[in-house]
């Protein structure tokens, strides 16, 4: 197969299956679920296989896939191609996006079984994957932006999937609007970028070649606006509030979109624009701080949440914070690698949560879900694996990726960030194990429905991934050769830290986390302490951020608008326009004698005017000759 074809197929398979499902859904009323399932799995499965092929070629042969679909704009020297490109970064992204989405598809087949909007769900799902591939594989920022908007749109559709409950629709709206704010930043950044370097062509390579032509302050502005976009999509402070609410969607949606793929788009984008961030150091540091604060903040909130999915949502935000910290200190590979492992274990966590929700008749509160260990042993093992991974206990994969981030943070000399990150990672262990201990280690017993094997197989596969994925990027310390780093070959800051310090850091980290786990065990396992926690606490209420937003932005704006509408607008603008209109009407009455509606007369006036012009020009011409 030709390389263009591979890439195009990789992109188009989900789109084709999505359109087929849409068509079937619209045209035929009663159609068997298996057809939808087959189409959806075929689409995502094909693209997963192709993605594996692409990353294989990219990894071993350093092959860069290119595909020019068509030229979108061709104005003079400037043209924008709709083109796809899978360089190392893109291939790396599809390496985990495509298989994870395929696994979640398999999972969703079981999860959504019997839903009345089964077809619509998979259509959206495949459409989402299509846009995600578009985002990742676009060879210029415009296609990336299209994909970016597309995932926003489909995520809106999926969050408010059960739209008969108005609450879900609000959650979708919230996600959509906050994402719009971020997108506005992204779009502005693209515009400025276009004004500055657009004349040289607008693919990523062209932009990065000519980036030196931009003056530093503009570059800072571009960098910060791009990061605003990333903030929105990756749920960082202050644009994070949509993520917890987005859990209103079905659990596979949370697993796919709000854990593995879409929220990582921000990280991917910052990594993609790495040359820009390498040049504007202040903004990078700012990103780092935002990431650190988000990580800690989310972790703190998560420690007092009771809804499984909310806990996981906050943990996602927290992990994204870790990634941004790494990005801010130019440790791109570490960030991306953490994203890689995060995709597996977070998807696994969400899927286990989903399995629990399905098995225990749609309960989500951990205070009600107690003593599940014997009724759902497989889920327990899965969840435990994922929790150990996320808590960064060696030798699970997240240990390697997170440790790499910590080492970089330490080496960069920003100890304040390092300490924030350290605390956040302790909190991570705390809230995750809190959830585990509350749910699985207690004296109660809850009857469970049997989980479908379609749910469990992907989970088992993912658990294997989340255990062993770390091997791909073993640090030098463990005689690894940093395979991913060499593959991606990003402009990382070199790690200047001795092995001794690294080992010490690891030990401290691990011991502290184990201590936290022990503390948590003491506190929550086989006790009812969870029931004693008060719900009026500032942490439990998420620091009142939603309310503050509501007060500061929504209410005040509304008051202001009402004031303007009643006082100023009426008196100043309406009156003046009325006077203007009246004078026009008066003047119009005068002219209506000439403007009698007869087209012949208009033609006559035109002719007379034309004639004067002609005679005038002719006289001028003759005089000049």
């Amino acid at each position: 197969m030709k390389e263009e074809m591979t890439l195009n197929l990789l992109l188009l398979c989900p789109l084709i299956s999505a359109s087929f499902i849409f068509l079937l859904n619209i045209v035929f009323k009663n159609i068997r679920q298996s057809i939808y399932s087959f189409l959806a799995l075929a689409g995502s499965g094909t693209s997963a296989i192709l993605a594996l092929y692409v990353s294989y070629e990219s990894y071993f042969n350093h092959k860069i896939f290119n595909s020019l679909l068509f030229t979108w704009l061709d104005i003079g020297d400037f043209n924008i191609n709709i083109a796809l490109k899978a360089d190392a970064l893109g291939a790396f992204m599809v390496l985990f996006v495509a298989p994870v989405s395929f696994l979640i598809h398999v999972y969703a087949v079981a999860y959504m079984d019997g839903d009345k909007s089964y077809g619509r769900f998979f259509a959206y799902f495949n459409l989402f994957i299509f846009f995600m591939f578009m985002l990742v594989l676009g060879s210029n920022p415009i296609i990336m932006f299209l994909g970016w908007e597309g995932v926003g749109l489909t995520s809106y559709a999926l969050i408010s999937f059960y739209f008969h409950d108005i609450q879900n629709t609000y959650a979708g709206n919230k996600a959509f609007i906050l994402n719009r704010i971020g997108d506005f930043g992204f779009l502005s950044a693209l515009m400025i970028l276009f004004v500055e370097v657009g004349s040289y062509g607008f693919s990523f390579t062209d932009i990065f070649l000519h980036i030196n032509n931009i003056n530093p302050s503009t570059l800072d502005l571009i960098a910060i606006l791009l990061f605003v976009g990333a903030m929105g999509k990756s749920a960082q402070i202050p644009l994070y509030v949509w993520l917890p609410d987005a859990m209103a969607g079905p659990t596979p949606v949370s697993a796919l979109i709000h854990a593995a793929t879409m929220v990582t788009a921000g990280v991917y984008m910052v990594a993609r624009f790495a040359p820009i961030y390498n040049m504007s150091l202040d903004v990078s540091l700012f990103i780092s701080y935002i990431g650190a604060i988000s990580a800690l903040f989310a972790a703190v909130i998560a420690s007092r949440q009771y809804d499984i999915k909310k806990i996981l949502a906050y943990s996602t935000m927290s992990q994204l914070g870790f990634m941004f910290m790494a990005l801010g200190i130019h440790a791109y590979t570490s960030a991306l690698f953490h994203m890689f492992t995060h995709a597996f274990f977070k998807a696994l966590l969400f899927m286990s949560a989903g399995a629990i929700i399905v098995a225990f008749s749609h309960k989500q509160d951990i205070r009600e879900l107690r003593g599940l260990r014997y009724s759902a042993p497989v889920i327990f093992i899965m969840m435990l694996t994922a929790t150990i991974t996320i808590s960064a206990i060696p030798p699970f994969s997240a240990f390697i990726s997170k440790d790499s981030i910590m080492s970089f943070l330490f080496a960069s000399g920003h100890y304040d960030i390092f300490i924030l990150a350290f605390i956040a990672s302790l909190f991570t262990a705390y809230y995750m194990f809190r959830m585990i201990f509350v749910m699985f280690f207690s004296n109660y017993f809850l009857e469970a429905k049997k989980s479908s094997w379609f749910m469990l197989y992907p989970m088992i596969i993912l658990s294997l991934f989340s255990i062993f994925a770390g091997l791909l990027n073993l640090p030098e310390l463990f005689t690894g050769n940093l395979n991913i780093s060499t593959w991606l070959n990003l402009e990382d800051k070199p790690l200047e830290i001795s092995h001794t310090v690294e080992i010490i850091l690891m030990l401290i980290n691990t011991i502290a986390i184990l201590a936290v786990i022990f503390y948590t065990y003491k506190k929550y396992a086989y006790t009812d302490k969870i029931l004693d926690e008060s719900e009026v606490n500032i942490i439990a209420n998420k620091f009142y951020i939603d309310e503050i937003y509501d007060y500061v932005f929504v209410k005040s704006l509304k008051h202001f608008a009402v004031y303007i509408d009643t006082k100023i607008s009426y008196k100043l603008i309406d009156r003046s326009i009325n006077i203007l209109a009246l004078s026009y009407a008066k003047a119009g009455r005068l002219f209506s004698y000439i403007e009698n509606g007869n087209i012949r007369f208009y033609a006559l006036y035109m002719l007379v005017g034309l004639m004067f012009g002609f005679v005038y020009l002719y006289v001028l011409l003759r005089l000049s000759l």
Partner: protein
Amino acid sequence: MQNEIIFILLAIITIVSSSVMIYAHRPIDSALSFMVSLVSIAALFALLNASFLFIVQIIIYAGAILSLIIFIIMFLNIKDENLPDETHKNKWLMFTSIIILPFTYILIDLILRSDIQTNSKLPENFGSIKDVGLTLFSKWVLPFELVSILLLVALIGSVSLAKREEK
């Protein structure tokens, strides 16, 4: 020489029939004299070696458009009392002719003064259907497609316009 004589004859026919067209009171007279002028313009096209345009002019203008007009004139069954009362027609015609005269004079003067050289070397197959077709489908594809859409729109529009409103 032969061409010049034919041209002068055709020009006279065209001008006279066009003048009759704008002067005649009844629309059927106008339409038929317009047909004469269309056919003679088509003959002028043939004189200019544009044989395809010649046949297109006859098929579309004389064959389709004009027959449509005459069909409509018959279809509407226009009686004399339906025609507009044009008592000042001659005055109007005089007035407009006086206005238009400088325009005509200036343009003719400019053309006579200009130094357009007559190019007698025509490429082979000039004006044939193949030549025009190749130009149409290479350089002018977009206008061609647009015109096809325009025709479709006109078709739909005319059908929906002429449909009687249902009570």
